[in-house]
């Protein structure tokens, strides 16, 4: 074999390796199926743990159920229903996020705005993926809380995105330029990531009010710096 042929062959081999590894990384995940399996696993494990716990170390055929009976029953018997609801929350949140994109054009598709939108899309996946969130649960009640928090978190993402884009829209008016000051941009960035986990509508409302207030206070600071008000 000639030297040139050898080089060509080695290049071909390297290309094949790179291509195969690229395909391996690009493997599509079915998070809904993963969630279903994760929920089934965690419920089964926790069921055993709970039985052990409530019967003082002795396994019984019927677990002793405490006041959270309905939640226990729901988790054990209605897993498909819970996963369906969870998936619907994801789909709703995604479609609402796309409406946010339309409402805040052109900010949402250019420069930093696009980065923000991509962040919230990743945040949707992170909230939707239950397996990592189930890692720390110790009881069935906590399993239910994780599910509730995940759904509430999904519901809140489009609202968080709207708050972030509203703040940016008015910041551009306030600073009157295409670029925001670096310090202000980093404050907006940290607010974008801020979220106090909530597990029902009341807690979601509380968390959103806190977040909205934080954005408002940022603008009060700016008005103070510009010599308005305080």
């Amino acid at each position, binding site marked *: 074999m000639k030297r040139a042929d050898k080089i060509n062959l080695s290049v071909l081999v390297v290309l094949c390796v790179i291509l195969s590894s690229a395909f391996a990384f690009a493997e599509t995940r079915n998070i809904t199926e993963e969630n279903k399996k994760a929920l089934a696993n965690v419920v089964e494990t926790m069921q055993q743990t709970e039985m052990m716990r409530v019967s003082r170390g002795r396994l019984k055929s019927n677990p002793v159920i405490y006041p959270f009976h309905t939640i226990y029953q729901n988790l054990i018997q209605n897993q498909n229903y819970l996963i369906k609801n969870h998936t619907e929350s994801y789909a709703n949140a995604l479609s609402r996020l796309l409406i946010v994109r339309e*409402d*805040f054009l052109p900010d949402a598709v250019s420069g930093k705005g696009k980065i923000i939108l991509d962040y919230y899309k990743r945040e949707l996946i992170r909230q939707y993926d239950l397996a990592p969130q189930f890692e720390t649960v110790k009881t069935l009640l906590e399993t239910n809380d994780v599910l509730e928090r995940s759904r509430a978190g999904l519901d809140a993402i489009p*609202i968080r995105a*709207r*708050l972030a*884009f*509203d*703040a940016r*829209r*008015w910041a551009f*008016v*306030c600073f009157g330029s295409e670029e925001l000051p670096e310090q202000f941009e980093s404050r907006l960035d940290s607010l974008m990531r801020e979220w106090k986990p909530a597990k029902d509508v009341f807690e979601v409302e509380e968390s959103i*009010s806190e977040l*909205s*207030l934080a*954005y*408002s*206070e*940022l*603008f*009060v600071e*700016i*008005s*103070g710096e*510009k010599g*308005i*008000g*305080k």
Partner: protein
Amino acid sequence: MKKTFLYLIIFSILFFCATTHAELMHATVELKDRAVVIGAEEQIIEEIKEWAGSKKGISIEQFSDEIQKRYGDRVDLESFSTAGFAQLTFDLKVSVHIREGILSGKLPPIEGLSFQDASSVLTLFGYKAVKLEDFNSYSVQEKVKVFVDARGPVMVLSGTGAFDTVMVYTTVDEKDR
């Protein structure tokens, strides 16, 4: 002793003169093409109103020249660019719950703030904020004054405790923009 007493009286008189000034009153006069808010002592306002009433067709330039000639700096004039006072209406452009306004990008972030802080933020964007109860208690002349000061839409904030609704009032001119 007598000298000190004299000084005391003189200083008291000077202090009294410095702190006491005639309270400015406001009134609105309707001209041919403008509404003019006059700020002056009550007696002067009465004189101007009487005089302006007999000269309905006068233009704003003639009016302000005449006032300047008669009263000098004792009168504040603010003319309001509208075709006539009868047409100067306070149109409710939008009434929006504060959360809804913020989420749709129509309002800057002012949720959860006190009236004072919200007013500062709105001033940052060139808006004037007024409490609903104040706005409702204003006479027409005072409302004209608010709009003249604002030079744009007026945000009327309402709600119990922390306000929760913003009503944006405009004049006909603003609405058409």
